[in-house]
Structure formats: structure tokens, C-alpha cells
């Protein structure tokens, strides 16, 4: 009987209904004003991440700004350099535009990696329970016990950091968050009648897990993927600020590290504000949208008046 193993047709069907549900949810979320602003910021950020390097008037590292034959060091904003220059004579505007891309890469891949891995672990753990659950949960306990930033610094201190490696390290330490939440959701969903009847009709474990249980926790999964996007950006920027970023790329975190190291923070507000405001705006935007979304998916918050 074809219907009771996981096949392409049913999967496609389910995917379609999930998509229309997602569109509906997005509309609902955007009714919230804070979420609207947050969403606009995220769209602008993604645009900058994709096209920023092409919009930048100069190369962020190789090009040195000069005026009258001498290097422009720590110049406040002028018409030639609308956001001023760094103490190495680089154009801050170009660095800011180009710096969105590494920040976006870490956010997107760290977020998706964390979301997917956490979702799968949580689903498996909650669905099977017993020894599988015990083993996976002790593993999450272990990643909770090992302090994230110190361990990440240690690992990155003996390999040359590159952006993919950093993203990987982030995923290794962040997946536990969605995993725990998804697991506890799955444990309540799998006790419901429709899951039991699917099993009774002879649906396999895979089919039950992915077609009957998973759609009911997908919302939470997306929520944590969004949060993980924010966490990854924060963690990536923190690592870069401590000097453990990808040395070949100008990210916003690295810009902050350079201005801090050079001691120019005292005067060069034009060098500090673009990356600092950029990071703060994007992470806040992610959490504002996430919060509005959480009000929808968390049934406990639905107890409206009387």
C-alpha cells in the first residue's frame, strides 16, 4: 500500500498546505506594528548582504582614501567619504556596506543549521522517548555545561578562523535550544488521538514523525530558527569583536574590533556607529518579529480577556 510509506506525492501535498498556512501566519504577524518595522529592517539587511559589496564605492580593505596626495586618516564625514574614514585611511561607508554580507552569512546559515539540527534532534528525542531520549538529552546537558564563548574561542584559537568554520561552531553550541523546546512539544503532540490512529492504521515511524507530528511543531521550529538567526549574528559579532573572526572578511563585528583596538573610539563616532547600529538594529528586528510570531504559536498566551 503506497499511502503508508513516505512518498513524494504526499510530501508535496503537505508542503503545499504548509506553505499556505505560512503565508497566512506571516500576514497575521505583520499586523503587529513592531513586527512590521522589524520585518522592514530585516529586508533592508538582506538586501545589503546580497548587494552591499557591489554598492560600495571602494574596496573595503584594499582601497586607501587619499586627498591632495596624502592618506585620509580618521577624517570625519565629508562629501568624498560620506561616513568618514578609519585610522588606516579606509572608507567607512564601503566597509559598512561590504560588512553586511559576512554578518548575513553567519546569521542565515547559523540560524538554518541550528533550526534544522535542533528540530530533528527534538523530534527524534520526543517521538521515540526512552533510551534514545535519555541519550540525546544528556548530550544537550553536556553542551549546556560547556561554556559556549570560551569553548568557541579555544577551538578557533588553533585553527585559522574562516566564516564557514565559525558558522559550524555556532551550530554545534546552539542546536540544544530548539531541541529541548521541540522535544517537549512533540511529547504532548504524540499522545493525541490522530497520531495514535495513524500508527494504528499502520503508518511507519518516519511517516508518523514527519507527516503527523512534525507539522504540529513546525511553528515552534520556525520561531527558533528565527531566534537562532539572531543568536548567530550576536555570537559571530562577539567572536569577531574578540579578534576571532574571519581575518579575510570585513564584518560589522570586525569593524568594531578594529575601532576598539586602534583606540579611536574616543573620537571616531562615525566609525563606531554604522556597525554598532547595524548589529543592534538587525538583532532587535529579528526578536521583534519573533516575539509577534510567538504570541501566535504559543497557545498559553491566547487566554484573552475573560
Amino acid at each position, binding site marked *: 500500500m503506497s499511502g503508508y510509506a513516505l512518498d513524494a506525492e504526499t510530501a508535496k501535498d503537505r508542503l503545499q498546505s504548509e506553505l499556505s498556512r505560512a503565508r497566512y501566519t506571516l500576514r497575521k504577524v505583520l499586523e503587529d506594528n*513592531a513586527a512590521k518595522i522589524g520585518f522592514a529592517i530585516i529586508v533592508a539587511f538582506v538586501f545589503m548582504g546580497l548587494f552591499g559589496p557591489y554598492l560600495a564605492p571602494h574596496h573595503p580593505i584594499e582601497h586607501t582614501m587619499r586627498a591632495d596626495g596624502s592618506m585620509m586618516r580618521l577624517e570625519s564625514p565629508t562629501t568624498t567619504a560620506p561616513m568618514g574614514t578609519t585610522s588606516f585611511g579606509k572608507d567607512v561607508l564601503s566597509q559598512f556596506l561590504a560588512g553586511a554580507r559576512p554578518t548575513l552569512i553567519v546569521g542565515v546559515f547559523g540560524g538554518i543549521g541550528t533550526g534544522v539540527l535542533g528540530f530533528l534532534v527534538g523530534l527524534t528525542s520526543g517521538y521515540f522517548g526512552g533510551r534514545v531520549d535519555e541519550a540525546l538529552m*544528556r548530550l544537550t*546537558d*553536556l553542551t*549546556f*555545561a*560547556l*561554556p559556549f*564563548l*570560551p*569553548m568557541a*574561542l*579555544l*577551538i578557533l*584559537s*588553533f585553527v585559522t578562523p574562516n566564516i564557514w568554520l565559525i558558522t559550524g561552531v555556532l551550530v554545534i553550541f546552539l542546536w540544544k535550544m530548539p531541541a529541548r523546546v521541540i522535544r517537549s512539544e512533540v511529547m504532548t503532540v504524540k499522545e493525541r488521538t490522530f497520531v495514535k490512529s495513524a500508527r494504528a492504521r499502520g503508518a511507519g515511524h518516519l511517516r508518523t514523525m514527519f507527516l503527523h507530528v512534525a507539522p504540529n511543531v513546525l511553528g515552534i521550529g520556525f520561531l527558533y530558527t528565527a531566534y537562532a538567526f*539572531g543568536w548567530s549574528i*550576536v555570537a559571530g*559579532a*562577539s567572536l569577531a*569583536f*574578540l579578534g576571532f573572526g574571519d581575518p579575510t572578511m570585513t564584518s560589522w563585528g570586525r569593524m*568594531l574590533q578594529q575601532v*576598539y583596538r586602534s583606540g579611536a*573610539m*574616543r*573620537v571616531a*563616532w562615525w566609525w*563606531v556607529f554604522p556597525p*554598532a547600529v547595524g*548589529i*543592534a538594529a538587525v*538583532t*532587535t528586528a*529579528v*526578536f*521583534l518579529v519573533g*516575539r509577534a510570531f510567538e504570541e501566535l504559536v*504559543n497557545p*498559553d*498566551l491566547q*487566554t*484573552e*480577556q*475573560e
Partner: protein
Amino acid sequence: MTFRRFLIKRTAIAAILTLVAVSVIFATLRMLPSDPFSGLVASGALTPSQVEELRALYGLDEPIWVQYLKYIQNLFTFQFGLSLTQQRPVSEIIGPALLNTMVLLLPALITTAIVSSLAGMYAGWNRGSWFEQFSIITTTFFRATPIFVTGIFLLIIFSYGLGWFPAFGMRSSMANPEGLAATYLSVDFLKHYILPFTATVLFYSGDFLMLARNSVVERKGSEFLKLHRAKGLSEMEQLGRAGRNSLLPLVTYFALRTGMLFQGVITLEVVFAWPGIGRALVQAILNQDYPTVQAAVFIMALAVIVMNLTADIAYARLDPTVEAGDV
């Protein structure tokens, strides 16, 4: 499962977890391609035989499993050995740094736990009010923004811009206080304290506020509150009842956060040049000072495990609906 068995099982798990965690730390450190002494040969500062002597002094020439056993034994007796780069016992480096971190973070955490929880309960009670909107957006901003970015904003405004507070360290370079009281109870210290303290309070406020708000919202429609309303209690009295019932998640969260306190807030300590454990750890990593790194990471991991255990036990004790069997 009785409470006693639950207790024994959780403690055993915590102990095993600690052992695994320190083994992971050991393995990670031994994967480092070089030790700090090999650089000395390359630079010609020492002859290879002198380096061998040094390595023997620190026990780095023994088989790896002997090193491992000694490492475990020393950690659990809190013998952290000598720093490789500073020629003094690791405990002399870690101890004061840990104290500095605690002095900064613990008061900040307690302050924000109380203030933000109360604000959150009030916000949840007045759902849809401007106060709720405003408090959520503000605290979300400070929770989402990396703490060092908040720190940089504070520095630029209050230190460089207005010149109200010093930017670096825990005391001014001229001050040379003797003893604990003189170190931590002076106007000079207070001036250095305010900015990092503010950054920490703002950073932690979001979680407590949202937790408190959500649990009051969850309880608002519940039966026992209807009863209280029927009894004729005022709004504030009702909120008091709802708030008391929302304390459990807050207490648990406070315990977990306290455990993570020992990790310091590394980037915050770096921004404000606060001589805490996080900053000490970053420096030790950069100097490849194994014993200090080991000790610092061990203390951090141990604190998290112990506080998690405490939270679990407190939860099982306080909440009668938590089935002790569900571990």
C-alpha cells in the same frame, strides 16, 4: 519514583556530566598543535634541552593518560597548578578575577531580577497598554543587542561624550587600594562600576520581564483569579495573587542564570577592561596558558552543572505538579 531516588539520580547524572565535560576540555586543549615552549626554541631563546627540562617541570613529557589522570585528580581537589606564562599559582590569577566578576554581575542580576519581574507582572496584567508595548520593545532591544554593543553605546555617550564616567578598568591608575573594603567601597570604584553595571542590568532585564509577563498573562483567565475577583479583591491584590503563582519559572530561571554568571560576560569585561574571569580567560587563551584556561573553563562548567542541578531539585520540591519520575 520517590524524591530521594530522584535526587540520587540527578546528582549521579550531574557528576558524570562534570567528568565528561572536563574530559572534553582536556581533549580540546591537547589538540592544540603547539605548546608555549616550542615557540621559544624557534626564536632561539632556549636550547631544545632547556625546553625539555621546562616541559618536564610542568609534566608535559609524561604519557597522555598519566597527564589525564593527574589533571582529573588535580581539578577535583582544586589544585590548579602554576600558570605557564605568569609564574604564579593559577588560583592566584583566577580567584581575584572571579571575585571581580561576581562583584559586578551578582548585584546586577539581583537588581534586574526584582525590578524587571515586577515590571513584567504589571505589563502582563495591563495587557495591551502602552506600558506593556514600551517595556517589551525596550527590553527586547537590550536583550537582542550584543552586550558589548550596548557597552560601546554607553561608553560613547556617558564616558567620551559627556565625560561623566571613566572608560576603562575597575579603578583609576593612581589608586592603589589595600584590602577588600578599600577596593570595593570607594567613590572611585563606584564611578568605574556604574557603566558596566548598567549594561548588565539592561541586558538581563528582557528575559525576566518576558517570563513574568507571560506567566501573568497565562494565569489571567484562570479559575482561581475569578474566585478572587468574586471575593471583591482590588486589582492590585489580584495581581499579587497572580504574581505569587508566577514565581516558579522566575526562581528557576534565576538559578540557571546564576550558574552562567561564572562565565562572566566576556565581551562586556573586554569592552570595559573589567579585570574579571572572562577577560582573564581570553588572555590565557591568547597566551596559550593551559593551566589557567583549564581551571577557568572547569569552574565555569562546574557552576552551570551545579546550578542546573539546584534548579531541577528546587523545581521538583516547589511545584507539586512536577512528577519526579519525569527526568
